[in-house]
Protein backbone atom coordinates (compact mmCIF):
# COMPACT_ATOMS: atom_id res chain seq x y z
CA UNK A 1 0.00 0.00 0.00
CA UNK A 2 1.56 3.28 -1.13
CA UNK A 3 0.37 6.64 -2.44
CA UNK A 4 0.17 6.98 -6.21
CA UNK A 5 3.19 8.74 -7.72
CA UNK A 6 2.42 11.95 -9.58
CA UNK A 7 2.96 10.03 -12.84
CA UNK A 8 0.45 7.34 -11.86
CA UNK A 9 -2.05 9.94 -10.74
CA UNK A 10 -1.68 11.77 -14.05
CA UNK A 11 -2.20 8.49 -15.91
CA UNK A 12 -5.40 7.84 -13.96
CA UNK A 13 -6.65 11.39 -14.54
CA UNK A 14 -5.98 11.11 -18.27
CA UNK A 15 -7.87 7.84 -18.53
CA UNK A 16 -10.81 9.17 -16.52
CA UNK A 17 -10.93 12.24 -18.74
CA UNK A 18 -10.82 10.16 -21.92
CA UNK A 19 -13.34 7.55 -20.76
CA UNK A 20 -15.78 9.59 -18.69
CA UNK A 21 -14.97 13.27 -19.33
CA UNK A 22 -13.84 13.82 -15.73
CA UNK A 23 -11.74 17.00 -15.49
CA UNK A 24 -10.18 16.79 -12.02
CA UNK A 25 -10.49 13.31 -10.58
CA UNK A 26 -10.65 12.75 -6.81
CA UNK A 27 -9.60 16.33 -6.06
CA UNK A 28 -8.29 16.82 -2.51
CA UNK A 29 -8.08 13.09 -1.81
CA UNK A 30 -5.02 10.93 -1.36
CA UNK A 31 -4.97 7.99 -3.78
CA UNK A 32 -3.32 4.75 -2.78
CA UNK A 33 -2.18 1.79 -4.85
CA UNK A 34 -3.43 -1.21 -2.95
CA UNK A 35 -2.30 -4.20 -5.00
CA UNK A 36 -3.58 -5.76 -8.23
CA UNK A 37 -3.75 -2.24 -9.72
CA UNK A 38 -6.55 -1.37 -7.36
CA UNK A 39 -6.76 2.22 -6.24
CA UNK A 40 -8.19 3.39 -2.92
CA UNK A 41 -9.03 6.94 -1.84
CA UNK A 42 -8.89 8.55 1.57
CA UNK A 43 -8.60 12.01 3.04
CA UNK A 44 -5.10 13.48 3.44
CA UNK A 45 -5.52 13.59 7.22
CA UNK A 46 -6.38 9.88 7.23
CA UNK A 47 -3.25 9.02 5.29
CA UNK A 48 -1.06 11.15 7.59
CA UNK A 49 -2.58 9.57 10.71
CA UNK A 50 -2.12 6.06 9.34
CA UNK A 51 1.65 6.58 9.38
CA UNK A 52 1.52 6.77 13.18
CA UNK A 53 -0.34 3.46 13.52
CA UNK A 54 0.76 -0.17 13.47
CA UNK A 55 -0.87 -3.09 11.66
CA UNK A 56 -2.69 -0.90 9.16
CA UNK A 57 -4.80 -3.06 6.89
CA UNK A 58 -6.71 -0.59 4.78
CA UNK A 59 -7.45 3.09 4.23
CA UNK A 60 -10.62 4.72 2.90
CA UNK A 61 -12.51 3.04 0.05
CA UNK A 62 -11.71 1.21 -3.18
CA UNK A 63 -12.48 3.58 -6.04
CA UNK A 64 -11.00 2.22 -9.26
CA UNK A 65 -9.06 -0.52 -10.96
CA UNK A 66 -6.63 -0.05 -13.82
CA UNK A 67 -7.15 -2.59 -16.56
CA UNK A 68 -5.18 -2.64 -19.81
CA UNK A 69 -5.53 0.89 -21.12
CA UNK A 70 -8.75 1.56 -19.26
CA UNK A 71 -10.06 2.29 -15.80
CA UNK A 72 -12.99 0.60 -14.08
CA UNK A 73 -14.79 2.64 -11.43
CA UNK A 74 -16.21 0.97 -8.34
CA UNK A 75 -19.69 1.95 -7.18
CA UNK A 76 -18.20 4.28 -4.56
CA UNK A 77 -15.58 5.58 -7.00
CA UNK A 78 -18.32 6.66 -9.39
CA UNK A 79 -20.35 8.13 -6.52
CA UNK A 80 -17.37 10.20 -5.30
CA UNK A 81 -16.85 11.57 -8.82
CA UNK A 82 -20.60 12.07 -9.15
CA UNK A 83 -21.64 14.68 -11.68
CA UNK A 84 -18.02 15.30 -12.67
CA UNK A 85 -18.63 12.28 -14.90
CA UNK A 86 -19.69 13.86 -18.19
CA UNK A 87 -19.66 11.13 -20.80
CA UNK A 88 -20.51 7.47 -21.39
CA UNK A 89 -23.24 7.48 -18.78
CA UNK A 90 -26.21 5.14 -19.17
CA UNK A 91 -29.40 5.89 -17.27
CA UNK A 92 -31.16 2.92 -15.66
CA UNK A 93 -34.68 2.61 -14.31
CA UNK A 94 -35.39 0.84 -10.98
CA UNK A 95 -35.77 -2.60 -12.59
CA UNK A 96 -32.55 -2.21 -14.60
CA UNK A 97 -30.69 -0.91 -11.53
CA UNK A 98 -31.69 -4.03 -9.60
CA UNK A 99 -30.51 -6.21 -12.51
CA UNK A 100 -27.27 -4.19 -12.59
CA UNK A 101 -26.73 -4.90 -8.90
CA UNK A 102 -27.26 -8.60 -9.61
CA UNK A 103 -24.47 -8.23 -12.21
CA UNK A 104 -26.91 -9.36 -14.92
CA UNK A 105 -26.09 -8.07 -18.42
CA UNK A 106 -28.18 -5.04 -19.39
CA UNK A 107 -29.51 -4.56 -22.92
CA UNK A 108 -30.12 -0.95 -23.87
CA UNK A 109 -31.66 0.46 -27.05
CA UNK A 110 -28.66 2.28 -28.39
CA UNK A 111 -25.29 0.57 -28.15
CA UNK A 112 -22.78 2.90 -26.46
CA UNK A 113 -19.80 4.01 -28.54
CA UNK A 114 -17.34 3.43 -25.72
CA UNK A 115 -16.27 0.02 -24.40
CA UNK A 116 -16.73 1.29 -20.83
CA UNK A 117 -19.75 3.09 -19.39
CA UNK A 118 -20.90 4.30 -15.98
CA UNK A 119 -24.45 3.49 -14.89
CA UNK A 120 -26.69 5.98 -13.13
CA UNK A 121 -30.04 5.46 -11.45
CA UNK A 122 -31.71 8.72 -10.47
CA UNK A 123 -28.97 10.66 -8.69
CA UNK A 124 -27.00 7.56 -7.77
CA UNK A 125 -24.05 6.27 -9.71
CA UNK A 126 -23.57 2.49 -9.87
CA UNK A 127 -20.01 2.01 -11.12
CA UNK A 128 -18.58 0.88 -14.45
CA UNK A 129 -19.82 -1.68 -16.95
CA UNK A 130 -18.17 -3.20 -20.00
CA UNK A 131 -19.96 -3.04 -23.34
CA UNK A 132 -19.76 -6.31 -25.28
CA UNK A 133 -19.92 -6.75 -29.07
CA UNK A 134 -23.55 -7.83 -28.85
CA UNK A 135 -24.40 -4.47 -27.30
CA UNK A 136 -25.06 -5.82 -23.80
CA UNK A 137 -23.47 -4.11 -20.84
CA UNK A 138 -21.79 -6.27 -18.23
CA UNK A 139 -21.80 -4.59 -14.80
CA UNK A 140 -18.50 -4.83 -12.92
CA UNK A 141 -20.00 -5.59 -9.52
CA UNK A 142 -17.96 -7.53 -6.99
CA UNK A 143 -19.55 -10.85 -6.01
CA UNK A 144 -20.01 -9.87 -2.36
CA UNK A 145 -21.85 -6.73 -3.44
CA UNK A 146 -24.43 -8.36 -5.69
CA UNK A 147 -28.13 -8.65 -4.85
CA UNK A 148 -28.55 -12.41 -4.39
CA UNK A 149 -30.70 -14.37 -6.86
CA UNK A 150 -33.30 -16.62 -5.27
Amino acid at each position, binding site marked *: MRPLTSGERKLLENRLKRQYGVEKAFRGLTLIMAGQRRIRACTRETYELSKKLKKVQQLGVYVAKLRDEEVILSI*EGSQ*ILGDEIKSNIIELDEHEAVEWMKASPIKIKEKPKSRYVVAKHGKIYLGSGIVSRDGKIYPQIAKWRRIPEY
Partner: protein
Amino acid sequence: MSDDLKNYLDMIPDLDLELLLEAYERPLPEAFRVNTLKLPEEETLQRLRDKGIKFRPVPWARHGYQAEEDIDLGTTLEHMLGLIYLQGPVSMAPVEALDPKPGEIILDMCAAPGSKTTQIAQLMSGEGVVVANDISYERVKALSSNIQKFGILNIVITVMDGRRFPRYIKEYFDRVLIDAPCSSLGIISKDWGVAKSWSYNVVERLSKLQLQLLKAGFETLKPGGTLIYSTCTLTVEENEMIVNKLLEERDDAAIKPITLPGLKHRPGVTEWRNMKFDPSLRYTMRIMPYDNWAEGFYIARIVKEA
Protein backbone atom coordinates in the same frame (compact mmCIF):
# COMPACT_ATOMS: atom_id res chain seq x y z
CA MET B 1 -32.32 -22.22 28.54
CA SER B 2 -30.22 -23.91 31.22
CA ASP B 3 -31.22 -23.79 34.90
CA ASP B 4 -27.83 -22.24 35.67
CA LEU B 5 -28.61 -19.29 33.42
CA LYS B 6 -32.17 -18.91 34.74
CA ASN B 7 -30.87 -18.91 38.31
CA TYR B 8 -28.20 -16.39 37.43
CA LEU B 9 -30.63 -14.02 35.69
CA ASP B 10 -33.04 -14.29 38.59
CA MET B 11 -30.36 -12.83 40.89
CA ILE B 12 -29.86 -9.64 38.85
CA PRO B 13 -31.56 -6.72 40.63
CA ASP B 14 -34.47 -5.06 38.84
CA LEU B 15 -34.77 -7.86 36.27
CA ASP B 16 -38.19 -9.39 35.49
CA LEU B 17 -37.39 -12.93 34.36
CA GLU B 18 -40.85 -13.59 32.94
CA LEU B 19 -40.72 -10.49 30.75
CA LEU B 20 -37.17 -11.31 29.75
CA LEU B 21 -38.19 -14.78 28.57
CA GLU B 22 -41.08 -13.24 26.65
CA ALA B 23 -38.69 -10.79 24.98
CA TYR B 24 -36.35 -13.64 24.04
CA GLU B 25 -39.24 -15.34 22.21
CA ARG B 26 -39.93 -12.30 20.04
CA PRO B 27 -37.94 -11.55 16.88
CA LEU B 28 -35.86 -8.37 17.03
CA PRO B 29 -37.36 -5.42 15.15
CA GLU B 30 -36.04 -4.62 11.65
CA ALA B 31 -34.32 -1.25 11.92
CA PHE B 32 -31.95 0.74 9.76
CA ARG B 33 -29.89 3.90 9.60
CA VAL B 34 -29.96 6.18 6.59
CA ASN B 35 -26.48 6.88 5.18
CA THR B 36 -26.31 10.65 4.93
CA LEU B 37 -22.78 10.44 3.48
CA LYS B 38 -24.26 9.31 0.16
CA LEU B 39 -27.65 10.98 -0.30
CA PRO B 40 -29.76 13.48 1.66
CA GLU B 41 -31.80 11.56 4.25
CA GLU B 42 -35.19 12.60 2.87
CA GLU B 43 -34.35 11.33 -0.63
CA THR B 44 -33.52 7.86 0.67
CA LEU B 45 -36.62 7.81 2.88
CA GLN B 46 -38.76 8.80 -0.12
CA ARG B 47 -37.28 5.91 -2.14
CA LEU B 48 -38.34 3.53 0.64
CA ARG B 49 -41.82 5.09 0.90
CA ASP B 50 -42.23 4.69 -2.87
CA LYS B 51 -41.69 0.95 -2.32
CA GLY B 52 -44.47 0.90 0.25
CA ILE B 53 -42.11 0.47 3.20
CA LYS B 54 -43.47 2.00 6.40
CA PHE B 55 -41.17 3.07 9.20
CA ARG B 56 -40.92 5.38 12.19
CA PRO B 57 -37.92 7.20 13.67
CA VAL B 58 -35.85 5.62 16.43
CA PRO B 59 -36.18 8.47 18.99
CA TRP B 60 -32.70 8.11 20.50
CA ALA B 61 -30.70 7.74 17.26
CA ARG B 62 -30.15 10.37 14.61
CA HIS B 63 -30.92 8.93 11.14
CA GLY B 64 -32.29 5.72 12.74
CA TYR B 65 -35.65 4.17 11.73
CA GLN B 66 -37.60 1.09 12.64
CA ALA B 67 -39.70 -0.75 10.03
CA GLU B 68 -43.36 -0.95 11.05
CA GLU B 69 -43.90 -4.36 9.54
CA ASP B 70 -41.88 -7.50 9.06
CA ILE B 71 -39.89 -6.86 5.90
CA ASP B 72 -36.57 -8.06 4.51
CA LEU B 73 -34.64 -4.86 3.84
CA GLY B 74 -31.45 -6.86 3.27
CA THR B 75 -32.19 -7.49 -0.40
CA THR B 76 -33.29 -3.97 -1.33
CA LEU B 77 -31.37 -1.84 -3.79
CA GLU B 78 -31.01 0.79 -1.06
CA HIS B 79 -29.22 -1.70 1.20
CA MET B 80 -26.93 -3.04 -1.52
CA LEU B 81 -25.98 0.50 -2.57
CA GLY B 82 -25.18 1.48 1.00
CA LEU B 83 -27.96 4.06 1.23
CA ILE B 84 -29.24 2.33 4.36
CA TYR B 85 -27.47 0.21 6.98
CA LEU B 86 -29.37 -2.48 8.85
CA GLN B 87 -28.79 -2.15 12.59
CA GLY B 88 -30.82 -2.94 15.69
CA PRO B 89 -32.40 0.15 17.25
CA VAL B 90 -30.72 -0.22 20.67
CA SER B 91 -27.40 -1.06 19.03
CA MET B 92 -27.46 2.55 17.78
CA ALA B 93 -27.44 3.86 21.37
CA PRO B 94 -23.72 3.44 22.30
CA VAL B 95 -22.55 5.68 19.44
CA GLU B 96 -25.21 8.27 20.30
CA ALA B 97 -23.82 8.21 23.84
CA LEU B 98 -20.30 8.61 22.40
CA ASP B 99 -21.57 11.62 20.42
CA PRO B 100 -18.79 11.88 17.80
CA LYS B 101 -18.10 15.32 16.36
CA PRO B 102 -16.70 16.31 12.95
CA GLY B 103 -12.94 16.84 13.04
CA GLU B 104 -12.22 14.46 15.92
CA ILE B 105 -9.89 11.45 16.00
CA ILE B 106 -11.91 8.44 17.20
CA LEU B 107 -10.93 4.86 17.96
CA ASP B 108 -13.40 1.99 17.62
CA MET B 109 -11.39 -0.74 19.31
CA CYS B 110 -13.53 -3.83 18.57
CA ALA B 111 -15.03 -2.60 15.33
CA ALA B 112 -16.15 -5.61 13.25
CA PRO B 113 -18.61 -5.98 11.59
CA GLY B 114 -18.80 -2.20 11.49
CA SER B 115 -22.33 -1.14 12.47
CA LYS B 116 -21.10 1.30 15.07
CA THR B 117 -18.05 2.28 13.00
CA THR B 118 -20.23 3.41 10.12
CA GLN B 119 -22.48 5.26 12.57
CA ILE B 120 -19.45 7.08 14.06
CA ALA B 121 -18.21 8.03 10.58
CA GLN B 122 -21.65 9.29 9.62
CA LEU B 123 -21.85 11.59 12.65
CA MET B 124 -18.38 12.96 11.81
CA SER B 125 -19.63 14.00 8.33
CA GLY B 126 -16.36 13.04 6.67
CA GLU B 127 -14.21 15.33 8.86
CA GLY B 128 -11.57 13.94 11.22
CA VAL B 129 -10.48 10.31 11.25
CA VAL B 130 -11.97 7.04 12.50
CA VAL B 131 -9.57 4.24 13.42
CA ALA B 132 -11.45 0.95 13.21
CA ASN B 133 -9.62 -1.94 14.81
CA ASP B 134 -10.42 -5.61 15.24
CA ILE B 135 -8.40 -8.61 16.29
CA SER B 136 -9.67 -11.00 13.62
CA TYR B 137 -8.72 -10.91 9.93
CA GLU B 138 -11.85 -12.93 9.18
CA ARG B 139 -14.13 -10.40 10.90
CA VAL B 140 -12.28 -7.49 9.30
CA LYS B 141 -13.51 -8.72 5.89
CA ALA B 142 -17.08 -7.89 6.94
CA LEU B 143 -15.92 -4.58 8.45
CA SER B 144 -14.13 -3.68 5.25
CA SER B 145 -17.18 -4.54 3.11
CA ASN B 146 -19.47 -2.42 5.25
CA ILE B 147 -17.07 0.54 5.18
CA GLN B 148 -16.85 0.24 1.40
CA LYS B 149 -20.63 0.13 1.02
CA PHE B 150 -21.01 3.11 3.32
CA GLY B 151 -18.38 5.08 1.34
CA ILE B 152 -16.19 6.24 4.23
CA LEU B 153 -13.09 8.16 3.13
CA ASN B 154 -11.76 9.16 6.55
CA ILE B 155 -11.05 5.72 7.97
CA VAL B 156 -8.08 3.52 8.80
CA ILE B 157 -8.60 -0.19 9.47
CA THR B 158 -6.06 -1.84 11.75
CA VAL B 159 -5.90 -5.52 12.70
CA MET B 160 -4.47 -6.22 16.12
CA ASP B 161 -5.34 -7.24 19.64
CA GLY B 162 -6.90 -4.05 21.03
CA ARG B 163 -5.11 -4.65 24.32
CA ARG B 164 -1.83 -3.84 22.54
CA PHE B 165 -2.91 -0.40 21.31
CA PRO B 166 -1.31 1.61 24.16
CA ARG B 167 2.08 0.11 23.32
CA TYR B 168 2.06 2.20 20.18
CA ILE B 169 -0.17 5.18 20.88
CA LYS B 170 -1.24 6.79 24.17
CA GLU B 171 -3.49 9.70 25.11
CA TYR B 172 -4.21 10.36 21.45
CA PHE B 173 -7.91 9.88 20.71
CA ASP B 174 -10.69 12.38 21.39
CA ARG B 175 -13.17 9.55 21.83
CA VAL B 176 -12.91 5.78 22.16
CA LEU B 177 -15.61 3.15 21.74
CA ILE B 178 -15.17 -0.25 23.32
CA ASP B 179 -18.10 -2.37 22.27
CA ALA B 180 -16.59 -5.40 23.94
CA PRO B 181 -16.99 -9.07 23.00
CA CYS B 182 -19.48 -10.47 25.50
CA SER B 183 -21.79 -13.34 26.40
CA SER B 184 -24.59 -11.73 24.30
CA LEU B 185 -27.50 -12.27 26.71
CA GLY B 186 -29.13 -9.14 25.29
CA ILE B 187 -29.61 -10.65 21.84
CA ILE B 188 -30.68 -14.21 22.56
CA SER B 189 -33.72 -13.89 20.30
CA LYS B 190 -31.21 -13.63 17.43
CA ASP B 191 -29.32 -16.71 18.51
CA TRP B 192 -30.75 -19.18 21.02
CA GLY B 193 -27.45 -21.05 20.92
CA VAL B 194 -26.11 -18.36 23.27
CA ALA B 195 -28.56 -19.41 25.98
CA LYS B 196 -27.86 -23.09 25.48
CA SER B 197 -24.08 -22.75 25.67
CA TRP B 198 -24.02 -20.19 28.53
CA SER B 199 -21.75 -20.94 31.43
CA TYR B 200 -20.36 -18.86 34.26
CA ASN B 201 -16.84 -19.89 33.22
CA VAL B 202 -17.31 -18.15 29.88
CA VAL B 203 -18.47 -14.99 31.68
CA GLU B 204 -15.38 -15.07 33.90
CA ARG B 205 -13.09 -15.54 30.92
CA LEU B 206 -14.77 -12.72 28.98
CA SER B 207 -14.69 -10.35 31.93
CA LYS B 208 -10.88 -10.63 32.13
CA LEU B 209 -10.61 -9.72 28.45
CA GLN B 210 -13.15 -6.89 28.80
CA LEU B 211 -11.24 -5.29 31.68
CA GLN B 212 -7.98 -5.45 29.74
CA LEU B 213 -9.65 -3.88 26.70
CA LEU B 214 -11.21 -1.14 28.81
CA LYS B 215 -7.92 -0.32 30.49
CA ALA B 216 -6.11 -0.24 27.15
CA GLY B 217 -8.80 1.94 25.58
CA PHE B 218 -8.63 4.35 28.51
CA GLU B 219 -4.86 4.68 28.06
CA THR B 220 -5.29 5.69 24.42
CA LEU B 221 -7.81 8.40 25.38
CA LYS B 222 -6.74 12.07 25.56
CA PRO B 223 -7.24 13.87 28.87
CA GLY B 224 -10.69 15.41 28.64
CA GLY B 225 -11.76 12.71 26.17
CA THR B 226 -14.82 10.45 26.35
CA LEU B 227 -14.88 6.64 26.30
CA ILE B 228 -17.96 4.49 25.87
CA TYR B 229 -17.86 0.96 27.22
CA SER B 230 -20.76 -1.13 25.96
CA THR B 231 -21.83 -4.75 25.72
CA CYS B 232 -24.93 -6.54 24.52
CA THR B 233 -25.15 -8.64 27.64
CA LEU B 234 -26.79 -8.46 31.06
CA THR B 235 -24.29 -10.00 33.48
CA VAL B 236 -22.92 -7.71 36.17
CA GLU B 237 -19.49 -9.34 35.87
CA GLU B 238 -19.18 -8.12 32.26
CA ASN B 239 -20.63 -4.68 32.88
CA GLU B 240 -20.66 -2.72 36.15
CA MET B 241 -17.92 -4.83 37.70
CA ILE B 242 -15.55 -4.06 34.81
CA VAL B 243 -16.22 -0.33 34.94
CA ASN B 244 -15.92 -0.35 38.74
CA LYS B 245 -12.47 -1.93 38.49
CA LEU B 246 -11.33 0.84 36.17
CA LEU B 247 -12.63 3.46 38.62
CA GLU B 248 -10.71 1.74 41.42
CA GLU B 249 -7.48 1.81 39.42
CA ARG B 250 -7.71 5.19 37.74
CA ASP B 251 -8.31 8.38 39.70
CA ASP B 252 -8.74 10.26 36.44
CA ALA B 253 -11.72 8.11 35.31
CA ALA B 254 -15.19 9.50 36.02
CA ILE B 255 -18.64 8.23 35.07
CA LYS B 256 -20.93 10.77 33.42
CA PRO B 257 -24.68 10.49 32.88
CA ILE B 258 -26.04 9.58 29.43
CA THR B 259 -29.09 11.29 27.95
CA LEU B 260 -30.84 9.42 25.15
CA PRO B 261 -34.43 10.60 24.73
CA GLY B 262 -37.05 7.88 24.48
CA LEU B 263 -34.73 4.98 25.33
CA LYS B 264 -36.18 3.04 28.24
CA HIS B 265 -33.52 1.83 30.63
CA ARG B 266 -32.65 1.39 34.30
CA PRO B 267 -29.67 2.59 36.34
CA GLY B 268 -26.52 0.52 36.61
CA VAL B 269 -26.21 -1.92 39.51
CA THR B 270 -24.25 -0.58 42.52
CA GLU B 271 -24.49 -3.66 44.75
CA TRP B 272 -23.92 -7.23 43.65
CA ARG B 273 -23.64 -10.27 45.85
CA ASN B 274 -21.39 -9.09 48.69
CA MET B 275 -19.81 -6.23 46.71
CA LYS B 276 -20.51 -2.52 46.71
CA PHE B 277 -19.56 -0.55 43.62
CA ASP B 278 -18.82 3.13 43.13
CA PRO B 279 -22.17 4.96 43.54
CA SER B 280 -21.61 6.81 40.24
CA LEU B 281 -22.29 3.51 38.44
CA ARG B 282 -25.98 4.29 38.81
CA TYR B 283 -25.38 6.77 35.94
CA THR B 284 -24.54 3.90 33.59
CA MET B 285 -27.37 2.44 31.49
CA ARG B 286 -28.75 -1.05 31.80
CA ILE B 287 -31.20 -1.74 28.97
CA MET B 288 -33.29 -4.90 29.22
CA PRO B 289 -34.61 -6.54 26.03
CA TYR B 290 -38.18 -5.95 27.27
CA ASP B 291 -37.55 -2.22 27.94
CA ASN B 292 -37.85 -1.38 24.26
CA TRP B 293 -38.76 -4.87 22.92
CA ALA B 294 -35.43 -4.88 21.15
CA GLU B 295 -31.83 -5.73 22.09
CA GLY B 296 -30.51 -5.63 25.65
CA PHE B 297 -27.42 -3.49 26.21
CA TYR B 298 -25.20 -1.97 28.86
CA ILE B 299 -23.60 1.45 28.29
CA ALA B 300 -21.16 3.38 30.45
CA ARG B 301 -19.86 6.85 29.58
CA ILE B 302 -16.43 7.46 31.10
CA VAL B 303 -14.51 10.71 30.91
CA LYS B 304 -10.76 11.03 31.43
CA GLU B 305 -10.41 14.04 33.63
CA ALA B 306 -7.79 16.54 32.50
